């Protein structure tokens, strides 16, 4: 597993630090990754693509409730929806809500400088093809990260 040695801190200073290790984690897993992808007036932090599958990831240092809200719109376009959370431990409330909503969960550890899967995302069948096509088209101009 690729790690980033960011510091001896126990917490992330910024979301971009979290995203940096998240990108390496996803690339290690065989995904092609793009950042800050526009989706219906919002910006998705990370879109990870494997073959024709698109996984939309909201990265948050701790505000997981906001991430859950943002994920609702992502259901209109993505095959899998995930939250990458940077808290020291994953709260049971978040885990419970993620399971209910079929949202995947990735824990990103500042102290370890690495990520692990906590909950795999369920296949999202709520997407709407016309909007998904627009979303995929809109990603073409964005370069790959990692």
């Amino acid at each position, binding site marked *: 597993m690729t790690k980033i040695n960011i510091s001896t801190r126990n917490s992330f200073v*910024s*979301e*971009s630090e979290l995203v940096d290790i998240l990108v390496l984690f996803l690339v290690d897993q065989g995904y092609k990754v793009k950042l*800050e*992808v*526009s*989706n*219906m*007036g*919002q*910006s998705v932090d990370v879109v990870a693509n494997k073959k024709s599958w698109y996984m939309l990831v909201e990265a948050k240092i701790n505000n997981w409730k906001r991430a859950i809200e943002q994920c*609702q*719109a992502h*259901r*209109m376009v993505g095959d899998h929806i995930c939250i990458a959370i940077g808290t020291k431990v994953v709260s049971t409330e978040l885990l419970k809500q993620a399971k209910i909503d079929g949202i995947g969960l990735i824990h990103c550890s500042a102290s370890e400088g690495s990520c692990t899967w906590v909950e795999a995302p369920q296949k999202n069948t*709520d997407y*709407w*093809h*016309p*909007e998904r096509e*627009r979303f995929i088209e*809109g990603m073409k*101009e*964005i370069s790959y990260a990692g």
Partner: protein
Amino acid sequence: MPASHWMQFATFAEQRHFVYPNENTYNGVVLNANMVAHAPGGIAAFILEKTGTQTSYIIDPLTHAYQHNPEFITNSAGALKSSIKSLAHFYGSPLLDILGDRPLLPRDFSKTENIVSFTKNVIDFQNNFLSGFMADSGSAKYLDDVEANPPPYALIAPYFYFTETTIDLWLDVYKKCAIQASEYVSDISESKFFLSMVVSQGVIVDEALYSKIADSVADIDCDGFLLWIDNFDETQASTKELEGFLKFGRRLRHGEREVINLHGGYFSVLASGAAGSHAITGVSHGPEFGEFRSVVPVGGGIPIAKYYMPDLHRRERYRDALQIFRKSGWLESSEEFHSNVCNCDECQSVINGDIANFAQFGDGNIKSVKRKTGIVRIQYPTTETKMKCLRHYLSCKQMEYENAANQPKTKLLDDLENTINRYEEIVGLDGISHLRKWHHVLSEI
């Protein structure tokens, strides 16, 4: 009597929509005086060429603008906005004496001569300023004298913003201006004479306060009021605020006076009709926005595409509307959509038999925006998207006004209840709470 339907002029980009969906949709246009001062030729041409033959206009003198912190009437460079400055020159003293230095205060009107001259100038501006520009307009030669120089529907007295703490400080000046204006208008014009009532939300929930205001103007000879409650979003207001709004409207009506809510939505439309026992008589809104508005401007924010939900009577972000429709199965086909969501001309035109075309209500161009955290990519609605959303909104508005005018109260309340039942599981209790409140308040009348 149906609610009079007014729309506010915002920018010249929307001017062609004042005859949409048809020429007789709007009873009138509300023009802000600073826009009139800034672009009189364009405004004159707009009135003569872009509005229906039965569409009147009112010029809101915007005298309240000068009582706030001058920073709200300055541009990003710190200079007074040119339109505000132009207007101030017409209004004269005491405004010109303090312009840009400090806000207007009640003591600036301590001299009777200031009340008289200021009031006269405010009325004269509304009554006379556009005349020459209308005469010079290219279309004037095709019109008779009256058609080429239509007077305003009503002339508005100078007015000031009342909050719970400033009513007692401004009311005397307000009343003196109102009396002065009433006498002057009756001498010079056959236009109606209105007062403008701009109040904070705290006023409408305090019966003593709004009664005081209403009582103070009860004896003034006027035909009606423009009403503006600061940032009064009917879809977020409490039951008490909605009730206060109706009661205040009724007090101002004093029997037969007109009361036009300058920034209102469907609740105001209902309030104007049988459902609200005619608490007010008319409603104005902007071209898609402006169903509520802050007295002190609060700008900013990224423009996003919003689709007006006919059943919920409010605009939703495109992505939220999409989720609602997807969840409900109304995006399965164009037939499902038109049966369950909207069958207006614009939706029929956009969807054109292919439900995938609904996405056009959310189309945008992606731009990179610099944030503290780095660059993010945000989608801004295209001009075409904004126009589609606007035309759909205006079609819905026309249907709302027509329904409120033609349906009995029981049917209108049943419609609210049916929507509550239909949408409860889709949007949750919070999503339809405003309909419950409206139903409750209107049922109690």
